């Protein structure tokens, strides 16, 4: 290859890759575009403070109130439950698969877990409603048949492979030399795993956490089916709640006329969700940078 042709190839490839990356920016611009237009129209009718700090959410009712807090708490409640399941369970599974399990077990179990990620979310919704909730009700008789707990748990199971698989890859990629170094100092497998391998794989693990968290907050169908679609300002996981996503899907697939204020709410809620996750991601990015260990 001549020098100029090689340079040209490199330049072209780089530009092509850059275009791919720019794609993500375009998507964001698109999403923000979709959201902003209607959101602005929404806030022309509803004061932003009513929206952000109001505690009653009844936009579809004749005496419409637009306090989004019940949806926010619902979202946070369900996501928190899901995270409480998915993060520890996913990380532990990953540690087991990468550091303890025989290669054969790992080869079989990992893809099996990944099946969990592919089950349609509608199915998870019904699983939560028809299987998990009744099961939980035998333990907690006061549990209402729609509640935050059951979809939270099921959502945790659904995003578990996201955490376990991606973290496992990150753990697996830590050079053996580091493990050997730790073992040679008299570390147990646990110490090696938790103090050397996990920190070295921190970047990958935290990426899996972030994806999982984003996924939990953005998940729609499970909550729409099993959480009850009842906008309530509550922190009680036993009671029915409605999440921001469940509300959005309810309106956008329902019979509300487009262009009405009721329809516009979904964009305002969507925008808020976008801002929330963005803040969350900013924070986790900062954390991640602080604790990342790079190996050569």
């Amino acid at each position, binding site marked *: 290859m001549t020098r100029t042709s090689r340079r040209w190839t490199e330049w072209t490839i780089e530009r092509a890759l850059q275009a791919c990356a720019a794609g993500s920016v375009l998507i964001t611009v698109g999403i923000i575009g979709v959201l902003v237009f209607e959101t602005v129209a929404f806030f022309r009718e509803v004061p932003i403070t009513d929206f952000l700090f109001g505690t009653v959410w009844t936009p579809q009712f004749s005496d419409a109130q637009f306090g989004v807090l019940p949806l926010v708490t619902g979202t946070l409640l369900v996501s928190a439950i899901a995270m409480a399941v998915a993060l520890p369970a996913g990380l532990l599974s990953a540690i087991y698969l990468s550091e303890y399990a025989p290669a054969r077990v790992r080869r079989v179990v990992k893809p099996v877990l990944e099946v969990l990620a592919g089950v349609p979310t509608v199915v998870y919704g019904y699983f939560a409603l028809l299987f998990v909730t009744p099961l939980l009700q035998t333990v907690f008789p006061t549990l209402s048949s729609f509640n935050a707990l059951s979809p939270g748990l099921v959502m945790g199971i659904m995003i578990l492979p996201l955490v376990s698989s991606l973290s496992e890859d990150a753990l697996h990629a830590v050079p053996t030399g580091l493990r050997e170094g730790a073992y040679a100092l008299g570390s147990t497998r646990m110490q090696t795993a938790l103090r050397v391998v996990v920190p070295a794989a921190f970047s990958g693990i935290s990426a899996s956490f972030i994806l999982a968290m984003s996924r939990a907050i953005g998940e729609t169908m499970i909550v729409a089916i099993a959480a009850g679609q009842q906008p309530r300002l509550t922190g009680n996981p036993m009671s029915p709640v409605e999440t921001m996503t469940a509300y959005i899907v309810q309106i956008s697939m329902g019979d509300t006329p487009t262009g009405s204020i009721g329809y516009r709410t979904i964009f305002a809620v969507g925008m808020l969700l976008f801002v929330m996750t963005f803040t969350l991601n900013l924070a986790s*990015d900062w954390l991640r940078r602080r604790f990342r260990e790079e190996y050569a």
Partner: protein
Amino acid sequence: MSTRASRLAGDRLLQTMSILVLALSLVALAALLYDIWSDGWYRLDWQFITSLPSRRAASAGIYPALVGSLYVLLVTAVLAVPLGIGAAVYLEEYGGGGRFARLIEINIANLAGVPSIIYGLLGLSLFVRAFQMGPSVLAGGSTLALLALPVVILSTREALRTVPMSAREGSYALGATQWQTIWHQVLPSALPGILTGLILAMSRAIGETAPLITIGALAYLDFAPSGLMSPFTVLPIQIYNWVSLPQPAFAENAAAGIIVLLVLLLTLNAVAVVLRDRFQKARQ
């Protein structure tokens, strides 16, 4: 203090806990699968797979939905895989650690949290209307590709990060260009991780319902899509449709549909898993 016993206990504890957690997850999966299987297995036959939808549960089939899912998934993969890997490579290998690159990175993580229905709205105004694709396979696949992209990009970036700098140095020192280094050294080393991301992303795409309904995927279609511009439906929509009907017989159809979807998914994953295994072995 680490007496032998307490050390062993700690080690055991972690191991036992991990196994327990893993076992619980597998039990949950088994419960889910059993639940579905016991509802749907006897509806599974060739007739079910090759028939068109019907208001009679017993004669209804999934043919258009199955073909539609395959088409859409193909489009999604063709778009999301190169785009996602390309973007990740750019950001990780070319983008530098600049503020802009970081902002893009955060932004991508953020995209993973956008509810799928919003992607549906975007797909509707962008692909269906602005690009005049109509509610076609192409529009559906493109919409799902948007949805799958963040997972592909993020997991690919992380996989690229695990490739040690010394491997890149070795390649550069032999007069390899940056792209040659990426193509011959970095990507092969990162492949297992990339494949994991692809599996997860495609798994998500194949199970989505809401955004496709929004862009106008159909619930009743009496022919299978025959090209990129055909109208289409997908399995999850068919399943969703069936579970919302009052007649209990349709719930069994839905279960059978889920089984087909899972088999489809497993088959796709199997390919990636085999590849991943091979590359991971080669790397050691």
